[in-house]
């Protein structure tokens, strides 16, 4: 978002709101502080924190892990699995979603099958994966794929069906064919909805890849976390959980940022709750409330969006 120099004047953003970052860091620190306090003092009210590892225990365990080779193998294994499954699901999910939304034949052929398979939790497909695939690795990717596939499919289907018909008619009366409509209207127009599906799909993918690794993996963050649990290494379990949390957050942020980048054209509301004035600006008393039909100049208020905060 910071590389907006060529569009200066349209997407110019004056200052990163440092105050808001500080607030976010402070909230996180407060949560960790509370954790440390409850576990350090061995608080045993109804909830029992005496058995719980402290933040420092977990931090030590984390530091030890980071020095070992296994941690990085686990990390790359899990990431490879989820990225493979998720990317496959993104491609196939969008393709099938568009097909089902645009073709009655495809809807009749695929619709019932998809609707029956959809409610089955992906993790319940572990037996299927074991039967079908020669290796565990492929089985885990399959489960990750299935997990992400349905949210992406459903969002794509809805987004394509909700497209404004005049866009398509406009392209038809310019002499455009079906491929032109697909490339110039359907895909770009459905993109906001597709990204909704991608975000949800990625979340479900993480749940499933970790669960699948716990059940049948060799290496992987989920596998390691379960191993630590079976040998009663609780700080290790928390290291695994924190790792999953951070990886999930990073990947969903990546999807979110890509989505915003590709759908910058979306009109956004000018109203930003609690926003501060965007920049030192000359007072413009007369033009404070432009009506929609007369805003010949782009309104500056849109700059106040907080795209950089995820």
């Amino acid at each position: 978002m910071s590389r907006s120099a060529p569009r200066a004047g349209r997407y110019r953003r004056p200052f990163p709101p440092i105050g808001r970052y500080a607030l976010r860091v402070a909230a996180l620190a407060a949560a960790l502080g509370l954790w440390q306090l409850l576990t350090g003092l061995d608080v045993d009210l109804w909830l029992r924190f005496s058995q719980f590892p402290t933040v420092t225990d977990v931090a030590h365990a984390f530091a030890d892990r980071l020095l070992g080779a296994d941690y990085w193998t686990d990390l790359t294994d899990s990431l490879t699995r989820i990225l493979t499954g998720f990317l496959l699901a993104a491609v196939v999910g969008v393709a099938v979603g568009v097909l089902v939304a645009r073709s009655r034949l495809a809807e009749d052929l695929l619709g019932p099958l998809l609707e029956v398979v959809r409610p089955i939790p992906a993790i319940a497909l572990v037996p299927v994966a074991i039967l079908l695939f020669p290796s565990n690795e492929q089985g885990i990717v399959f489960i990750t794929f299935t997990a992400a596939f349905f949210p992406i499919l459903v969002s794509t289907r809805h987004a394509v069906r909700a497209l404004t018909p005049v866009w398509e008619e406009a392209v038809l009366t310019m002499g455009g064919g079906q491929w032109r409509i697909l490339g110039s209207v359907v895909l770009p127009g459905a993109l906001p909805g597709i990204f909704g599906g991608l975000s949800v799909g990625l979340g479900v993918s993480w749940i499933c890849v970790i669960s699948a690794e716990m059940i049948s993996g060799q290496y992987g963050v989920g596998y390691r976390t379960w191993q630590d649990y079976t040998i009663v290494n609780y700080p290790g379990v928390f290291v695994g959980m924190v790792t999953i949390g951070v990886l999930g957050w990073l990947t969903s942020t990546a999807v979110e940022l890509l989505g915003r980048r590709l759908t910058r054209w979306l009109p956004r509301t000018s109203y930003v709750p609690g926003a501060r004035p965007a920049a030192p600006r000359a007072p413009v008393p007369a033009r404070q409330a432009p009506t929609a039909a007369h805003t010949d100049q782009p309104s500056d208020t849109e700059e106040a969006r907080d795209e950089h905060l995820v």
Partner: protein
Amino acid sequence: MSTSSDTKPDLRTVDNAPSPVRGTRLTLHAATLGRPDASVLEGVDLDITPGEILTVVGRSGCGKSTLLRTLAGLLPPLAGKISQDGQSLAGPTAERALVFQEDALLPWRTLRANVELPLAIRGLSRPNRRTQAEAWLARVGLAEQARQLPHRVSGGQRQRAQLARALAGAPHAVLMDEPFGALDAQTRAGMQDLLVEVLHGTGATVVFVTHDVDEALFLGDRVALLGAGRLISVREVPRPRERAAHDNPARIALRREVLTSLGS
């Protein structure tokens, strides 16, 4: 016409040729129009001559839009025959451009990219379509806004961009479905002016649907009246036509100058 020769894009017609008409004849013969479950217009006989501006008036729901969408080829006739220059219509083509009342610009494309779309479909090279799109936007007074997204310009500017996009495809007929219906009176008058100015010289046949009788009489060579599920009559607008005053090259030149110096 000569005033715009330097900026005017390829229009398939030589600018100072005696008869720049490249319009097309659209004929409806005993046509029933509508959707299969509900016909809207029955027994329509209408001959739209090359290069004329035919305005169509009628109340809401009388089938004006249906007539236009049928002429565009988006809706097949339920009965009868519809032809262009003697040949039956077979679906939508770039020869008959449609201008919609609502926002039909693709919101993720800048105005220029929207105008480039029909040129891209025609297979023009990127630099070529860029120059042509910019020339068209300049003609409708949007040179400054070429790189804006549709939602960042006013409703009137969006309709001007739509007009530019329709004309950029060099259609033989321009079908306009209440294009100024959502605009306020002042913007609307400016748009009517602009339409007369821009269409002047393209020679395209125009079918212009409106519910505003004054607009119909101002713009049209002939006015078709629709009502009660049929075409009531087609009336010639008496000469001299009011819009002829707006068609005057000297006036057009002055208007352009005023617009330029106002920077709009």
